[in-house]
């Protein structure tokens, strides 16, 4: 199953452990994480469910292309990293 890691700076603000979840897209995987940790959702996504402006999500080393709907496809072996974008300072 895909594994999701969160930047340590996020983990210092809220509950954001490494998670192994089901899913075939970034959206499905993140939704599975948020089902376990509801508070985490608003730290990663904005009010309309898009990736926050200064958050960046990598799948197997590549930044996702669909930041609004999170439809990027993931594999069972994928490693997903939710990081701070340097654009945010």
């Amino acid at each position, binding site marked *: 199953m895909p594994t999701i890691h969160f930047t340590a*700076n*996020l983990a210092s*603000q*809220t509950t954001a452990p490494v998670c192994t979840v089901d899913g075939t897209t970034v959206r499905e995987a993140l939704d599975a994480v948020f089902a376990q940790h509801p*508070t985490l959702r*608003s*730290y*990663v996504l*904005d*009010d*309309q*469910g898009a990736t*926050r402006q*200064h*958050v960046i999500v990598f799948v197997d080393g590549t930044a996702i292309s669909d930041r609004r709907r999170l439809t990027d496809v993931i594999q069972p072996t994928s490693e997903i990293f939710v990081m*701070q*974008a340097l654009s*945010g*300072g």
Partner: protein
Amino acid sequence: MITKLYLGTRKGLIEAERSAAGWHVTRISFLGVQVPMLLPDARDGTLYAAVEHGHFGTKFHASRDAGASWEERACPTFPPKPDDAPEVIGMATQQPIPWDLKKVWALEAGAAAGELWCGTLPGGLFHSLDSGASWRLVESLWNDPGRAKWMGGGAEWPGIHTILVDPRNRHRLLIGVSCGGVWESTDNGASWRNIGEGIRAEFMPPEQAYDPGIQDPHRIAWSAADPDTIWMQHHNGIFHSTDGGQKWREITNANPSNFGFAVVMHPQDPQTAWFVPGIKDELRVACDGALCVMRTSNGGQTFEPLRQGLPQEHAYHLVYRHCLDVTGDGRTLAFGSTTGSVWISENGGDSWERLSADLPPVYCVRFG
């Protein structure tokens, strides 16, 4: 006597306390994170803080032990934008106004127990009836066609920075919008009316200068003793109303300046108000490098600069709209600057003492 002062700053929530030896800084919470708005709720002692992470957005926290410990509560959130909802295009930017919380810019207690009102950029008003456990967007205002005229004022998006709840009538609210003027509700937010005859905007073409829907009231204050008497520090001047905000008179005798952001009124004496003047909108520093607080004690007939204890040479402090507060007795005031100084007066502004010159930029000052 009030003995606690809370400061929302660029780098956290800072507390100060009054002891026998005077005021001193005692604690910081949320170190490193912006705190643009806070509310010490006198009704039940809860302290609320909007905490704005640079990367992870705004969160809402509450403390029931005066800041010793915190719990995260729900944050005002815009609902999913319906596919058929028309875009509201910002007049100045010609970009759609997002349905996404950018900043908490106003937070006030409502009339009922646990009732809170929250104003945000981009121009949302939110209502909670359960001490921030949940929030509802006030759609009557969000969907008002008048919102299409709102503009950002010092920010990319318009925002609600002032919320006044009438102590005589719990269903009457006034809000201030930069830039969208003054809006009144007499049915606890179910419907709204844009008011403000006489408010003038220098920043608009002449034929729109008196349009109440595009005004930039930096801050609005009324006295609990007489909520019909209202002062407004506006982008290009100071305005005074004695009929609850329907009609306004422009003040031309401010001393030393009619520019600034903050204004507070004496809670018991509607003839007395304080401002913190700067030079003008394109030169946002203290006049002549000499910091002062400006007070009227006679309803605007005259204004006096209060300088004792404030730096009078090479002082370039700017004081934002939420950074001046006064206690219920009208005697103790505090203000904080964008360059990290905070001053306190315990004699109605006659003289001041500096709490600190070493703080982060100050965004919000409130006694608790």
